[in-house]
């Protein structure tokens, strides 16, 4: 109990983030206020240019991602600014300020709108319609379009057909809202709520079927499950208890209930497989998704031999078949090194091969990439375990409700008149 109190007083630890260009032209890592980008075509670190006149990030970046076409990139975080980048020359052409800290971002499928969510549950939209990204856009104001009532939104996602915007929150909820043709007027029409998780929802991804046109939604949660949803009705199609099925929970008791929260997931191999990052797991769980039967099942666990590495963020490049993983954190307390990042990749998802972790020198971009993204080539495994542990604590503090023991609550209610005479 005391230990927990102490932990909340610490500076907020921010997890490292990774984003991969849809055609693997570049890879971006955000760690604390730093945004590091490596251009794989030029095989060189990118120097970022800010045309917008706004300040650069001054506090931890909490969300960073590419648009579906790869032309846009958005970063945002605790400093309450959202920066929109054109990825061609890595220029920031627009800086939008938010009233509250930003915790999730999404770019509409056609690249016309950027949406971001703040810590008070409001989703905002920035209109980029008709803008080509070549000259600075100047001051842009965001408009609120929907809100989860004072709940922290953990993820935002557009459906691949562009019809819906999906928002997930810490109150176990996923809301599917119709993204209208005039989104600046607000997103009022709720298509469905996907309800079934019993802890915060930490990540979302869409799976598209090869034969049938319907897209399903995947979600990962603090309840250690990955679930499959039909977003048009909100129906829960299947639940995969990843930590139990992958044999992570066999010996641990109740006390470690929150040990295996799902931290990230992404679809690989044309949505046949889902790569899942689980808290405290030194490996990746691969869940196979049967689109026609609408089921999920654990296919295998890819362990990481030889190095202590707990992935906390994932990115997949469909054209290259490579899964990028990151671990690390910024503002680490009690550590010689305030911010740490480690990038690794898995390749070989094709059916004939076994997926395997790639050695550092075989990583696309090689050591140059690692030096850019990690800040250093040499790594010491143990500090990353510490970092993963710190991220876990931070995530629990942020997203899990504090539980007060029953005696404490009863003590506070001892003077209630209506209870006085009852047993």
């Amino acid at each position: 109990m005391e230990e927990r109190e102490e932990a909340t007083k610490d500076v907020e630890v921010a997890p490292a983030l990774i984003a991969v260009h849809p055609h693997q032209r570049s890879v971006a890592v955000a760690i604390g206020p730093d945004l590091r980008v490596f251009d794989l075509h030029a095989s060189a670190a990118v120097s970022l240019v800010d045309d917008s006149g706004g300040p650069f990030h001054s506090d931890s970046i909490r969300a960073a991602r590419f648009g579906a076409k790869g032309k846009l990139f958005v970063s945002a975080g605790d400093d309450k600014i959202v920066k929109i980048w054109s990825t061609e020359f890595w220029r920031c052409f627009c800086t939008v300020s938010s009233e509250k800290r930003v915790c999730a971002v999404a770019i509409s499928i056609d690249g016309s709108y950027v949406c971001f969510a703040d810590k008070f549950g409001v989703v905002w939209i920035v209109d980029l319609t008709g803008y080509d990204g070549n000259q600075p856009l100047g001051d842009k104001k965001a408009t609120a379009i929907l809100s989860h009532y004072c709940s922290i939104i953990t993820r935002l996602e557009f459906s691949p057909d562009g019809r819906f915007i999906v928002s997930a929150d810490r109150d176990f909820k996923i809301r599917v809202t119709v993204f209208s043709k005039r989104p600046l007027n607000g997103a009022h029409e709720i298509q469905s709520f996907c309800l079934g998780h019993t802890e915060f929802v930490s990540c979302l991804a869409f799976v598209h079927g090869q034969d049938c046109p319907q897209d399903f939604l995947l979600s990962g949660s603090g309840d250690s499950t990955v679930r499959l949803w039909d977003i048009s009705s909100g129906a829960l199609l299947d639940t995969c208890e990843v930590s139990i099925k992958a044999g992570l929970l066999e010996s641990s008791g109740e006390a470690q209930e929150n040990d295996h929260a799902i931290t990230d997931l992404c679809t690989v191999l044309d949505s046949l497989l889902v790569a899942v990052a689980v808290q405290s797991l030194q490996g990746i769980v691969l869940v196979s998704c049967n689109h026609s039967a609408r089921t999920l099942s654990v296919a295998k666990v890819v362990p990481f031999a030889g190095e202590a590495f707990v992935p906390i963020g994932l990115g997949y490049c469909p054209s290259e078949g490579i899964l990028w993983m990151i671990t690390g954190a910024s503002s680490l307390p009690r550590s010689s090194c305030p911010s740490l990042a480690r990038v690794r990749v898995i390749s070989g998802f094709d059916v004939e091969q076994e997926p395997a972790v790639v050695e550092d020198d075989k990583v696309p971009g090689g050591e140059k990439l690692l030096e850019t993204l990690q800040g250093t080539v040499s790594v010491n495994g143990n500090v990353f375990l510490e970092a993963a542990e710190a991220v876990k604590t931070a995530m629990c503090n942020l997203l899990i409700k504090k539980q007060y023991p029953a005696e404490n609550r009863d003590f506070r209610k001892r003077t209630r008149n209506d209870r006085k005479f009852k047993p």
Partner: protein
Amino acid sequence: MPETEVNPTHSKSTGLPRKRFYRARAHSNPLSDSHFPVPISPSHVDYSLHYPQFFPSAGQANNSKKIQFADIGCGFGGLLISLSTLFPETLMIGMELRDKVTEYVKERILALRVANPGQYQNVSVVRTNSMKYIPNYFEKAQLTKMFFLFPDPHFKEKNHRRRVISPHLLDEYAYALEVGGIIYTITDVEELGEWMKSCLENHPMFEALSEKELEADPVVKLLSSATEEGQKVARNGGQTFPAIFRRIVPSDQTP
């Protein structure tokens, strides 16, 4: 002494609970984390607990009856009690955030059921934060009427986001209401009355009822006469400001 015979919090003559044992603060913080149980989804709401006569055993699937009226912030439950006999076949629920007040309404309903066998079986109450958990209780288009009577005015501008009628929360109410369903709001605070009316007017999924429709609706009269707050306002000779709107299909959806 058997507990059920003499309940000291209940009136000896009527058997109804006495309000003085259930006094609560007038305000409750809707933003704080909730520690009461919340159903995971509408299918997890245990109807047999709320309406034992309609649902004799738990988990009964063959009775497809669903809650159709929701009184959000039902207070001491005056409206629900009146509606219960007016619509005896309609299931209705009151939602109240204050624990003690919920407890009062619960006791009141139980006492009324005992005193009037066969009646008041269609009404129940639940302690919850309706600003957060409406989707956990009701499916899409499940409700035909929603009531927001004499809500907390939250005068300070900084606290406007705590108001139960607000542009973004109306999205959720529109989700829970069927097309044609009606949302009733009333207040004795003019400023709040204007706020609620303008929120509803500016929302694409609601339209105002006509004067004629308001006259024909028997529920409208109950808004000020049946509720404890309404009676208090009438006693003091105060004015009330109702805003009653219908859920419609947004115009950009109609072909």
